């Protein structure tokens, strides 16, 4: 569609740009940045110890992988991430379903929930650190919180959004209350519920990092980066950034695949954000 807007002028632009094939265009910027980086090191544009050569980052990466340090840190981060996510998401599902199904429940607990939700997630950490210490328990609690809110909200909306039309069909077919819930309400709400779970995954990963920065005992990729920062090891930090990005990407990708599989019945592509 964007092409429709730009049709009048692309003729001349494409004449110029035609030398760079479309598939390669995406690489220009990253390659240029890396070249710039390499040049900065090679020609000594800066004397700061932070300007580490590209090769050093690579060497550090290799070392981290070989020594198993990456494995230790990443697995620690991931298991906490998934544990917290699973806990928060499942509690969130139950709570969100209750909110959606029962008007009374919503009236009793809804306002309190929405108020507590206003508190920015990370503001909870200091309190959690007092109540649960600085170790894994505290982190998992915090991560559950991070996953809890988006799941509740999306589950609630999904359930409330079940079309009355379909509920009438269930009445005509004499479904029991349980059958209505399992066969009509939950399937109909599933796109929204999945969106909530996807969001929860994103937030949980974000929270994992934050938790590791703030609740410093233990191992994790966030701790690795903090290490690097405190020792001015730029290469380690950059390595950490790349790993974090890759994990984020992978989690996202997995979630999208699962979503598109289970929600194939929707027919149209679900917009990704």
């Amino acid at each position: 569609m964007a092409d429709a807007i730009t049709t009048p002028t692309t003729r001349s632009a494409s004449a110029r740009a035609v030398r760079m094939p479309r598939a390669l265009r995406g690489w220009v910027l990253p390659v240029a940045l890396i070249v710039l980086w390499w040049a900065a090191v090679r020609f000594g544009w800066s004397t700061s110890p932070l300007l580490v050569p590209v090769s050093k980052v690579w060497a550090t990466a290799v070392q981290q992988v070989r020594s198993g340090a990456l494995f230790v840190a990443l697995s620690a981060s991931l298991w906490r991430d998934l544990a917290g996510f699973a806990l928060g998401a499942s509690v969130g599902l139950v709570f969100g379903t209750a909110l959606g199904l029962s008007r009374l429940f919503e009236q009793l607990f809804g306002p309190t929930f929405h108020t507590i939700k206003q508190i920015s997630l990370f503001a909870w950490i200091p309190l959690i650190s007092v109540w649960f210490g600085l170790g894994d328990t505290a982190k998992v609690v915090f991560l559950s919180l991070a996953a809890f809110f988006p799941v509740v909200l999306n589950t609630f909306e999904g359930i409330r959004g079940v079309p009355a039309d379909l509920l009438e069909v269930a009445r005509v077919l004499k479904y029991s209350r349980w059958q209505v819930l399992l066969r009509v309400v939950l399937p109909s709400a599933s796109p929204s519920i999945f969106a909530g779970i996807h969001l929860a995954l994103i937030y949980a990963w974000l929270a994992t990092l934050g938790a590791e920065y703030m609740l410093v005992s233990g191992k994790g990729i966030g701790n690795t980066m903090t290490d690097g920062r405190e020792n001015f090891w730029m290469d380690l930090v950059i390595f950490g950034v790349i790993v974090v990005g890759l994990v984020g990407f992978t989690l996202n990708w997995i979630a999208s695949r699962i979503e598109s599989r289970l929600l194939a019945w929707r027919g149209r592509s679900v917009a990704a954000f």
Partner: protein
Amino acid sequence: MAANDSLALPRPASAGAAPEHGGKAQRHWRPGLHHAAWLLAWPVPLALLLAWYVAARFAWIPPQVLPAPDAVWHTLAELYQSGELQANLAVSALRVAGGFALGLAGGLALGVAMGLSPGFRDYVYPTFKAFSQVPVLGWLPLLMLLVGIDEALKIILIAKASLVPIALNTYKGIQNVPTRYIEVARVLKFTRWQLLSRVVFPAAAAPVWNGIRYGLTHAWLALVVVELLASSEGLGYMIVYGRQLFQLDMVIAAVIVVGAVGFALDKLLALAERAVLRWRKPGL
């Protein structure tokens, strides 16, 4: 009626009950339940408050772990009277405002550029996408090394936090403007500028607005984190300070203020949304 009613999900009470064309069933408007809704909101928070008060009063939990509600209240009042609260609040607010403004401008510019120019998109989008895979917090140690821990760090982090969702949503919003509107504009011989200002931007307004909402939420999130980690003033700092001195009343007071700000931001956004998107059918 009762047995079948339980199969019905709670619906926003519809005003009229008379079926019109097609005779779709409408729920009767029950005024009693509506007004009671306001009252029902209170039992849970009040019960929690009571439990808190009792627990603190009878020292079931040491005050360093759970201060009494009135202690929190006093601290809040003190902070307000001494002006400390306002000062820290102002610092935080300014940071968010500055960072968000930067992120907003950058995000809109980037999103529009990617949306309108396929060439630009081809070069920039992959890199942008790669960068956005790293959550805001992933950049923190790197940025700390590069720019230290004063204002620049906070502004940059907040800007980055808001820039990504805004740019992404703006780009998608422009991309998804239905071709049929563009065709109408072509038939009516709109100039390029008219096409953009009269068709593309209004049509993309809703997703762009969504992005802005996300951006503000993330900006606020980033602010709190960065103030918790690397700040000597601001709301986040207040929380950490209280924590380190084991003055939990201060911590809780500051957390309450953080929540209040979050709430205010939400309301502000809702108001602005109503103004900006007046033409949309409600509930979309």
